[in-house]
């Protein structure tokens, strides 16, 4: 099977990441995500899940290796072109990172305003989105007055408002009960059906098993990819990248289910 690297939404080649002079928190991480794929990212605490996500949403630079997003090599992309790439990525941060002084409406509107969308379109889109996450009664509420679950939905609304090509969610079901978790996951699946590539980092192994999406497993800074159909686990060594390329089925959820 030939993989067109240009079409990959995300592509990591032999990525290593260290903070300062510390040990590498990610080692030789290689994978690629096809458009419209849906992956879980699992692994024990401290395995590097958040670091991997940070690399994907361009909050960090890798210490080595090559990252390409939407066909752009990050290392050679001009700095002033990076905001354009970031606008194609929606992020649900683990701690939401809502701006406390802004209303739910203004928080959700941020990605549109940053992209200089006309205010009339902002109003229409944001109101629609808040209704979709069932927060239409809390448009003017500020985050500190909202419950954890409500804040989470504001965060998710903000992440998806600009119809990102790639959605990254760090423990989006971390602080809610199972019922709410399933609802949120279905929200992501809806978005996925519209073509958005999705990566969800989670601790919730039961959830992963139930949904059957392919799984990226991080352990001590090393990445293995498991397809939902078969265990395509690849051990250390340079062969891993090839193996991932062979196991490209792993990045296609339609085959996986």
């Amino acid at each position, binding site marked *: 099977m030939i993989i067109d690297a240009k079409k990959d939404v995300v592509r990591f080649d032999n990525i290593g990441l260290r903070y300062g002079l510390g040990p590498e928190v990610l080692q030789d991480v290689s994978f690629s995500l096809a458009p419209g794929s849906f992956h879980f990212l699992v692994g024990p605490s401290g395995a590097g899940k958040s670091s991997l996500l940070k690399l994907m*949403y*361009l*909050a*960090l*630079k890798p210490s080595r290796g090559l990252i390409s997003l939407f066909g752009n090599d990050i290392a050679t992309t001009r*700095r*002033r072109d*990076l*905001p*354009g*790439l*970031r*606008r194609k*990525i929606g*992020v649900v941060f683990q701690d939401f*990172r809502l*701006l406390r*002084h*802004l209303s739910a409406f*203004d928080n959700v509107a*941020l*990605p549109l*305003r*940053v*992209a200089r969308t006309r205010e009339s379109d902002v109003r229409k889109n944001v109101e629609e989105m808040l209704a979709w996450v069932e927060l239409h009664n809390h448009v003017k509420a500020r985050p500190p007055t909202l419950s954890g679950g409500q804040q989470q939905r504001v965060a998710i609304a*903000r992440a998806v408002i600009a119809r990102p090509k790639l959605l990254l969610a760090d423990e989006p079901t971390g602080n809610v009960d199972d019922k709410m978790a399933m609802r949120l996951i279905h929200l992501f699946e809806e978005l996925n059906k519209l073509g958005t590539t999705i990566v969800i980092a989670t601790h919730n192994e039961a959830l992963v098993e139930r949904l059957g999406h392919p799984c990226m497993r991080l352990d001590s800074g090393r990445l293995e990819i498991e397809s939902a159909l078969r265990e395509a686990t690849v051990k250390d060594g340079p062969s891993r990248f090839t193996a991932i390329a062979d196991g490209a089925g792993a990045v296609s959820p339609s085959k996986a289910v």
Partner: protein
Amino acid sequence: MFSRRSDIPLDRDALSRFLPWLIAFMVYMASLALAGVLVLHAAAGRWDKGMSTTMTVQIPPPAEAGGAAANQQKQVEKALSILRSTPGVVHAEAIEESRILALLEPWLGTLAGEGDLPLPRLIDVELVTGADIDVKALSLRLAAAAPGAAVDDHRLWLDRMIRLIRSVETLAVAVLALIVMTTAGTVVFTTRTGLAIHQEAIEVLHLIGAQDTYVARQFAGRALALGLRGGVIGLGLAVPTLLAIGSLAESLEGGLLPDFSLSMGNWAVLAALPLVVAMIAMFTARRTVLRNLSRML
């Protein structure tokens, strides 16, 4: 001109309360320094022009008393005719002996009037504005007609005076420059603090794809507003101070001091000061934010 609303709660931090007062203080001092520069500059110019259009020629007293008075009078007339034929001279007139005596009276008493004190005769010469007179050649010609005649174009005295004024002026300009640099430094510091306080919000904006200029505009807009507010306060305090200094100088009598009042043009320059300071604050804030953000990926 700037975004209608701010995503960063800049108006809620303590900085926005104290920055205007700092800037007000800076503008107050800058106003005084600037007013000083303007007044001294004008005064130096006026003196330079006023003094360099006059000269004094001195004809020494005759060697021996009596009999030679007519001789001295002849020398004065010769000198006058030389001066009047010199290009650039508008007017040349001998000062009456009685007036010289009157001028000397406070020092010598009526004694000088007895007539046996040898007195020099003085000729007051008025020149065309900007006249370029070769003083050396003129003195030689005058000395030939009246031995011992000396020309005093007040140059030496004037040069010293103007040098003094110019150095005070330079000092005031230096003070002004220091104030401007301190203001910029203050803005850099407060902006950096603002960046640190609002780092969370800035990071979120950055990660959802805000251009650096989007963030910088919010900081620059705030710096402009705070700078203007502080500048107007500072100027508002400086105006009564300057008026008070002006009336004090006037009550000292114009004979001793040159005219130290501010012209309309000078007031206009002073009125522009808050605007200039606010602009400096705005550009400094913008630059500081852009430099800081450029360190982010």
